[in-house]
């Protein structure tokens, strides 16, 4: 089962994603953390997420680039969070995929999903606001938008979480 979960900032998408993983039954639960910590605010964010996950049986592994090359057990139930960070890493880190990010990540996720039992991906809605961006930010929005569409097409189910309420966009129950 491949499930894509999207939503805005502070929407409760992580909590829903964790519950979704728990509902997928037994297996080796692995959390792929994609946010590269670069300041105090990121460490606080990481701590908050760690506290939320504690007691749910996740092993945390860092995944800043190359999600397709990870070595994972076949019975793994993987929660990858968050695609918005992975996309930024691939786009802007010197060793990343740069302007090939959308294609690279789409392929990587395809590979990753074939290695594991279930894959749940959290992504982010950053597309609805009045501000118009230029340059890197605009390219980033376009890249993440493309990735989200590609992932939704390959996933069995897709949800948007609005203030903790899951709205099914594709597929049935998780």
């Amino acid at each position: 089962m491949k499930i894509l979960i999207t939503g805005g900032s502070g929407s409760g998408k992580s909590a829903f994603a964790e519950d979704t993983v728990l509902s997928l039954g037994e297996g080796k639960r692995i959390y792929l953390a994609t946010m590269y910590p670069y300041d105090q605010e990121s460490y606080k964010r990481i701590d908050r997420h760690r506290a939320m996950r504690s007691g749910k049986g996740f092993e945390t592994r860092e995944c800043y680039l190359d999600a397709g090359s990870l070595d994972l057990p076949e019975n793994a139930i993987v929660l990858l969070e968050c695609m918005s960070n992975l996309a930024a890493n691939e786009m802007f880190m010197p060793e990343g995929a740069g302007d090939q990010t959308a294609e690279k990540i789409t392929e990587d996720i395809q590979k990753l999903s074939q290695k594991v039992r279930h894959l749940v991906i959290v992504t982010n809605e950053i597309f609805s606001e009045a501000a118009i961006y230029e340059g890197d930010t605009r390219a980033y929005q376009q890249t993440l938008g493309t990735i989200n569409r590609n992932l939704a097409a390959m996933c069995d189910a897709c949800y948007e979480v609005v203030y903790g309420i899951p709205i099914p966009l594709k597929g049935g129950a998780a």
Partner: protein
Amino acid sequence: MEMIIGGAFQGKKDFAKAAYPLLHWCDGREASEEEILKAGGILDFQEYIRRCLADGQDVSLLAEKLIEANPDVVLTCDEVGYGVVPMDAFERQYREAVGRVCTKLAAHSAKVTRVICGIGTVIKHV
């Protein structure tokens, strides 16, 4: 509790007032904490959260406080979490706070309606 949410300028206020014509509404732009905690309806709740934060207040227990003091309130609130992460730290704090507070309120609410183009879609009703 009931929430009417959606982007800016989507007709949330008109929708709310049409649904509850007799309710007394206060405005998040100017209402005091006392008014917020006893109002029948609150418009632009996000503005109240913004004022609290600008004032240096901690809003991490605001949802609990409102649920406790005013469990039957009807409120409208903008969804503000759908853009690129803001460069400004206060703007980041604001948009995340609106999300966190509203997620708790939505868990408590019997009904949540999302208004887009003036059209309300009920996304939760228990």
